């Protein structure tokens, strides 16, 4: 995919923003053990942090713990901070990178010093008021926390489908790529939803094992009722919209809804579907063009 990012910029920048809620990120790269893993985990964390910064426009709402700093105490402290600073309308995205373990009863995230358990993390996350939460646990054995963590309606992604998949995972590398990939942005709206990022990353995981000619040792899982609605990353920074642009954006949103409604009637409409779709999409393109022109002034 070789679309110049500048072509997307105007459109993407002016899409309706989520209602003034803040998006917070907590990114943790756990204990690498082997230097090559430590390096890889740190790289993944850096890539995720860059995507987060591009999305929210500053580092204020981003916490990154990696290397020797990623201790249990530091993690507890970061989550306690979020518990104190976020509002129910806010959103929280947590990315856990590294090695995990599962002994049949308890999941543990490997950290420098004392590990942290899945139960403890669940309690700490439960204390954060932000009601819309995404937890991406990209560690080995992460499937062990899939059900308990998602029980409260939280969106949870795990690199493995159970605690029994214990090999070092590849998911975090592909998740980091998904957050900045135009290819992952299937609907080309300039932002990456949970669903888009998950679909892209899990596909790359499967393909990487296939290319290596070995059986996959991890099978990513997603639990979420609204994975398409949660914007986890933007491909370009947001800019402020003028009142004219706001009005055009409203029309754009209406047209989008009409397109979505029409798609549901595709079979019923038969040969009439494409002409009706074309009429809506042409109008949508024209409105978009007007937005671009208004933004350029």
């Amino acid at each position, binding site marked *: 995919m070789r*679309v110049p990012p500048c072509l997307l910029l105007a459109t993407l920048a002016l899409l309706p923003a989520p209602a003034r809620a803040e998006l917070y990120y907590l990114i943790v790269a756990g204990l690498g053990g082997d230097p090559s893993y430590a390096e890889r985990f740190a790289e993944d964390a850096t890539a995720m942090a860059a995507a987060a910064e591009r999305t929210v426009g500053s580092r204020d709402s981003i916490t990154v713990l990696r290397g020797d700093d990623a201790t249990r105490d530091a993690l507890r402290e970061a989550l306690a901070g979020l518990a104190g600073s976020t509002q129910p309308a806010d959103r929280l995205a947590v990315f856990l990178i590294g090695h995990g373990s599962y002994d049949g009863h308890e999941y543990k995230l490997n950290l420098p010093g004392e590990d942290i358990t899945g139960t403890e993390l669940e309690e700490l996350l439960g204390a954060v008021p932000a009601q819309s939460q995404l937890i991406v646990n990209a560690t080995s054995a992460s499937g062990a926390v899939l059900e308990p963590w998602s029980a409260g309606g939280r969106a949870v992604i795990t690199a493995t489908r159970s605690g029994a998949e214990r090999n070092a995972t590849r998911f975090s590398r592909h998740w980091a790529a998904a957050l900045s990939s135009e290819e992952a942005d*299937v609907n080309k709206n300039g932002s990456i939803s949970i669903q888009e990022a998950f679909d*892209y990353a899990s596909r790359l995981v499967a393909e990487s094992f296939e290319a290596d000619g*070995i059986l996959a040792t991890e099978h990513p899982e997603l639990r979420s009722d609204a994975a398409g609605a949660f914007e986890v990353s933007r491909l370009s920074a947001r800019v402020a919209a003028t009142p004219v642009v706001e009005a055009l954006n409203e029309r754009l949103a209406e047209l989008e809804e009409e397109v979505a409604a029409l798609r549901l009637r595709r079979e019923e409409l038969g040969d009439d579907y494409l002409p009706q779709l*074309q009429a809506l999409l*042409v109008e949508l*393109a024209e409105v978009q063009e007007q937005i671009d022109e208004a933004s350029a002034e």
Partner: protein
Amino acid sequence: MAGRASPFAALALLLCAAVDAEAAYGIDYSADRPEELRACDASYFRGERAESGRCYSALLAGDADIRIKAEAAWALGNIVAANNYFQEAFDANPEDARLRLRWGKLFEATNAEAQEVATLYREALEIDPAYAPAILGMAELAAGRFEGRAREWVEEALEIEPESIGAHLLLASMELEVGNLELAEESLDRAFELVESSDYPPLEVYALRASLDLLRGDFESQWITRALEYSPMYGDAYAIPAYFFVITRRYREAIDFYERAVDVQPDLYAAHTALGVNLLRENRVDEAYRHLRTAYEGEDGYSSDTTVNTLNLIDSFVNFTVETYDGQTDPAGGGAGVILRLHQDETDVLTPYVLDLVNESIDTFSERYGFTLEEPVIAELYPVAADFSVRTAGLPGIGLLGVAFGYLVAMNSPSQAGSGQFHWGTTLWHEVAHVFTLEATDHLVPRWFSEGVSVHEEWSTGPLPGRHIPVHVLQAMADDRFLPISDLDEGFIRPTYENQVIVSYMQAGLICEYIAMAFGQRALHGMLERFRAGDETPAAIEAALGITPAEFDDRFALHVAAEFDMVLDNLEAWNEARAALREHAAAGDWEGVRNSAAEAIALMPGYVDEGSPYLALERAQRELGDQGAARETLERYWRLGGYEPTALMRLARALIDAGNNETAIEVLEALVLVTPLDESVHADLGDLLLETRPADALTEFTVLAALEPHDQASVNLRLAKAHMALGDTGKATEHLLYALEIAPHYREAQQLLLEIVR
């Protein structure tokens, strides 16, 4: 050895279903075969089953030794009882070498694992190291797997027992396999004398004599008639010669003979299996299925792996598409069309490239060999390695990637895991060359010449430039391991050292290259004509080239010396330079890598295969920040025939960045012949072709769509652009709507849509 009956429990279970089924009861030539059994054998092998049945039954009912009862039960087809008797006899006679041999023979007849059979033979030899029948048993097992050591075993058996009929017959069979007809005849003469002077059935001698006649082109052999006069339902009178037709790739004659075999002996299930397998090689799928099914049902409970696996393969054909393409080739080239059998998941992706390449190869070879194909070439590509293995079952020294059975070519699909090291385009080119050498000679071409022409064509007209000779073959050349031309087939059929088959491929390729160079391409036609006329290699060489094989060997050796002496002289220094660059790379010393790689390249500039120093040099140049030099190195590597896919993709991207789209297109087109399932190859290639070759761009984007990429919106945009470039705004609009239906905000698609509607 003691208490080792447990492994056979599994066999006992397996055999439970095999009561009264027919399991091949072959002639036992052992000098120590009990007289009682030999009396029954006389009528059995004359086909007088009622009489032999009474005879063996009497042995079973009487107070004969348990070992004799085991044999009698086996002859009567009661395999479970035979196995039980053998087990009982085993417990009572733990030191009986013959018993273990015969029990092994029962295992062999019931398609047990060769390893289990070999265990029994080895145990017999532990009891009596000089027990010739067990040594011969080991020889037979090795021969069945086309192992060179078979000859050592059989010679050892003959040393101990010079009058072993079985050993002489095996030796004859092995000589027939490699086309040494005179040596085969000598062994058969000896076996014949021994059979004549004894009361053993002469059936196998007759069948092998018939095979010899048939391989010499005498289709009116008296020996089949004599065998059938001796035993009217002796199906092996046909099945044994049929086997040699298979070995010499004359599948149509093999089918004819296997059909006759099952006509005279309907319960000869091994012949039904072989018939099925060979019918499949002729693409006669329904008939193949019927015979394999007959074998499966007849061998109730002890079917061979070949039977079961081939039936499963045929069942899997429902997942394949079969498309016929007529008149695709230039009529002047004489192609009779192409049939593609591709897995349904790959059909849309592979069809354009496979079809193009098959057609191009047909045109090329039709012209170069002056031969017009009379039937369509059938190309099958298997995405599952196991299916391809089943397709090639039973062929000696077979390559891992492709096979040609005549007009039918089967090969691994590039989708198989790890396929990046597999240049499928070259494999296909190689196999279609076989179609010509096989069909132009009515399948009489010797293996070495067919392989030699295919390798020569790979190097001279194939899609990949240059010779590709593995390092171990260069080492074999340095060690003077090339065979005389008259013996070259042995290097394919019964290799005596690791990798000899590959060495033989390369030698054959070099020989054909030399013939074309020294005697002209026309001389290769001449060789084909001589083979078609029935000449063996020495006669064909003399007739087509006008020199003796010995003279040819001398001249070829001079040619090889002229071509390779410098390379071979440098081999050690080259290996040292490569070892040094590996050490430098491990230490992150990129300057050192650059120097060592450059040194290695200077010593052997044409080497672009596994471990090529070009790739190390390019890496070093990148690490040292010299991107321009890195690109030039990669380009040189590619132009010499290097095809490592990630390197070529790097080259393509570097060329695009440098604005050299024309060469980038060439590189990406080369990549399609390595990794046709890589989405980025088709996306990039289509993008580059869009302006100048929109029809080809549309092909690339259509293939990209068939790969079902993650980003469906952008592939539809690409398709829209290609249709626009071809002037089809209707199709373009349709694809834009598909793109925008998925991604309503897709700015580039919106702009194109507005451009069309305004």
